[in-house]
């Protein structure tokens, strides 16, 4: 279908900007593994400190790239499946707020005054520009959501009785989760941290700020994941050459995410004071609940792929796995999505460990964690983003993709790289290797008294994986920018491969109605978080003054 020039520009800007920044994000990823394996024993390289680079890596890859992509892909799904364009003005305001916010945060990070990592835990203080930039990025993304709701309502009125397309349902559910959970982090940033970092308020309640961050922080990972899930359900069966096994399963999974994505954040805080064990156990159980929609998805997508494989004549229980278009370069999205799914098997399985109450004590904040989440956010999420970004770039500019062979190889390189990288990290984590640490200075430096020889092979393995990942990413950038700067050869348009459903299913009215799920969502959030909030006040003492990353004495912002 045709898309107006205005929306082509909005979507393309929202794809090009984060992919360009991703060059820095990937560079700092590579630098991490080099420092950590002890190849260098330095605090900084090229004037960028280890922790500054780690902050850039986290913020660019996990917040900027994912948020921009979710908005761009959201626009595309709304336009394509509802055959309607959202409000131009709102969409433009949204885009500009996100861009300005990102540039502010980027300037803060590059200046070295915001080396607080992407979790920005107080009382480490960043320059106010960092908090303001992060807030603008988030608030900007809301504006797109607001205009989509209007578009959806209008479509609903004009199409009574028609099922909401699965992709649109996914986009709206994803941004509902996002809107609710970002209220918590917006409160943390704008009310607690910003005035405190400006010196207007002396102290901050650290446990409260952390609770609010994680009220947002785990829902964030589903916000990353759902665009990929939308592709798995609505596109993957089609590009595999089959049909979606069940549409209702997709709807059920999405609604389960709606109610269970948010009230599980305390499972990131199992090692902390201020939450009673009962609160931790309850949220551990809720986290088990949010595993269920992913299990449903694993089966439904498996069945859809089996259908595709059998259609090509596959025999036996597992023969279908061999009859899929892994290397079809005209169908490269398949490679991106399947590699993501393979990683997600291990990412999901290790995630259950993390959520399992006292088992968390074995892995919390060790290198097991980045090992785990590079198989989720740097697995299905990242690969879906890369594949879809170059797909949309080509369609919306009317330019043929350059180096299609390379584009098809990238996800396999990435898959192999991440598997090696994560094995190294998780193995190291089980040996007590801390995450977020410049290991090369001390723990993997043979000349240092803190040297840990058992962490050398594990960090070396992570280095090998990291190098393979970087090679994959560089090839991708090469093809992406060659395509972006290539010649226009066809009329720009938008279309998505869209899977048919295998069987016409009975319509289940509850799977086509937001209201009961929204009510349930708020009830579960209250059940999970009212006791958590009460504990925060019951157990916490005085607030904390701000600290600079280089100085153990509190900052006096009045004499700044």
């Amino acid at each position, binding site marked *: 279908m045709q898309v107006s020039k205005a929306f082509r520009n909005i979507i393309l800007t929202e794809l090009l900007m984060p992919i360009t920044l991703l060059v820095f994000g990937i560079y700092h990823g590579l630098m991490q593994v080099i420092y950590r394996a002890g190849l260098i024993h330095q605090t900084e390289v090229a004037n960028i400190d280890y922790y500054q680079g780690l902050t850039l890596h986290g913020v660019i890859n996990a917040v900027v790239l994912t948020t921009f992509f979710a908005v761009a892909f959201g626009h595309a799904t709304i336009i394509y499946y509802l055959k309607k364009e959202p409000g131009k003005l709102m969409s433009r305001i949204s885009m500009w707020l996100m861009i300005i916010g990102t540039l502010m945060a980027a300037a803060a990070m590059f200046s070295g005054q915001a080396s607080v990592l992407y979790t920005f835990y107080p009382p480490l203080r960043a320059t106010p520009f960092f908090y303001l930039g992060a807030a603008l990025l988030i608030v900007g993304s809301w504006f797109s959501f607001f205009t989509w709701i209007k578009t959806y309502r209008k479509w609903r009125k004009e199409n009574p009785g028609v099922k909401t397309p699965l992709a649109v349902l996914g986009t709206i559910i994803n941004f509902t989760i996002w809107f609710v959970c970002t209220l918590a982090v917006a409160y943390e940033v704008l009310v607690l941290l910003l005035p405190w970092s400006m010196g207007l308020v002396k102290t901050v309640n650290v446990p409260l700020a952390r609770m609010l961050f994680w009220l947002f922080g785990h829902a964030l990972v589903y916000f990353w994941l759902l665009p990929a899930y939308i592709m798995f359900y609505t596109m993957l069966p089609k590009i595999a050459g089959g049909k979606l096994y069940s549409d209702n399963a997709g709807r059920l999974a999405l609604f389960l995410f709606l109610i269970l994505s948010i009230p599980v954040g305390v499972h990131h805080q199992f090692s902390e004071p201020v939450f009673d064990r009962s609160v931790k156990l309850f949220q551990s159980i809720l986290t088990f609940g949010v595993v269920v929609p992913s299990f449903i998805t694993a089966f439904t997508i498996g069945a859809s792929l089996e259908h595709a494989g059998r259609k090509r004549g596959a025999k036996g229980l597992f023969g279908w796995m061999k009859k899929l278009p892994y290397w079809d370069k005209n169908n490269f999205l398949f490679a991106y999505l399947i590699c993501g799914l393979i990683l997600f098997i291990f990412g999901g399985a290790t995630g259950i460990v993390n959520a399992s109450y006292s*088992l968390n*004590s074995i892995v919390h904040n060790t290198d097991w964690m980045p090992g785990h989440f590079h198989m989720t956010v740097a697995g299905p999420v990242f690969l879906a983003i890369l594949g879809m970004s170059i797909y949309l770039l080509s369609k919306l500019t009317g330019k043929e993709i350059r180096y299609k062979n390379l584009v098809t190889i990238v996800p396999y390189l990435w898959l192999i790289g991440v598997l090696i990288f994560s094995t190294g990290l998780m193995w190291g984590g089980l040996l007590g290797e801390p995450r977020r640490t410049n290991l090369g200075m001390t723990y993997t430096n043979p000349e240092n008294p803190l040297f840990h020889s058992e962490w050398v092979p594990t960090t070396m393995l992570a280095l090998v994986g990291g190098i393979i990942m970087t090679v994959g990413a560089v090839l991708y950038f090469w093809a992406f920018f060659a395509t972006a700067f290539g010649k226009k050869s066809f009329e720009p348009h938008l279309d998505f491969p869209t899977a048919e459903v295998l069987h016409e299913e009975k319509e289940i009215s509850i799977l086509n109605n937001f209201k009961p799920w929204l009510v349930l969502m708020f009830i579960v959030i209250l059940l999970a978080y009212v006791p958590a909030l009460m504990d925060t006040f019951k157990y916490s003492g005085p607030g904390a003054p701000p600290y600079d*990353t280089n100085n153990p004495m509190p900052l006096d912002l009045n004499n700044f």
Partner: protein
Amino acid sequence: MNKYELRVIIAAGTLLMIFLFSVLYAAYEKKIDLPACIPYNATFKEPRVKQVDSNTYEVYVVARMWSFQPAEIELPVGSTVDFYLTSNDVVHGFDIAQKGVNMMAIYGAVTKTTAKFDKPGVYKMTCHEYCGAGHQNMQGEIIVNYK
């Protein structure tokens, strides 16, 4: 929902229930539990080792940029230790990997856990949360010896 989908949901639910009962078993029978929380008061900011009786100790650890206090703790083999942890400044971590002791040190809050040291050796206490420029130097030791 057809019969395959129902089977999948039931199987997944069963597996997760088994996991849940396994952690509950560990908590009640093996006393492997998450850290507990203690209402805050300022005395937790004084680092010290307190012997309660012949093989029971209380260790009050204060994490600060960029060391633990006490940085070196000596204990006899067979000691049961209650660790109380708080932070003097930013957020720190406290990980004794060999013992599955894993806690966060947070300003204005106190975490508590218990560990038993049955074997002699040097146990490292590693800060595993980013706490500023000197984070990679932040490690302490527990030395467990025969009396």
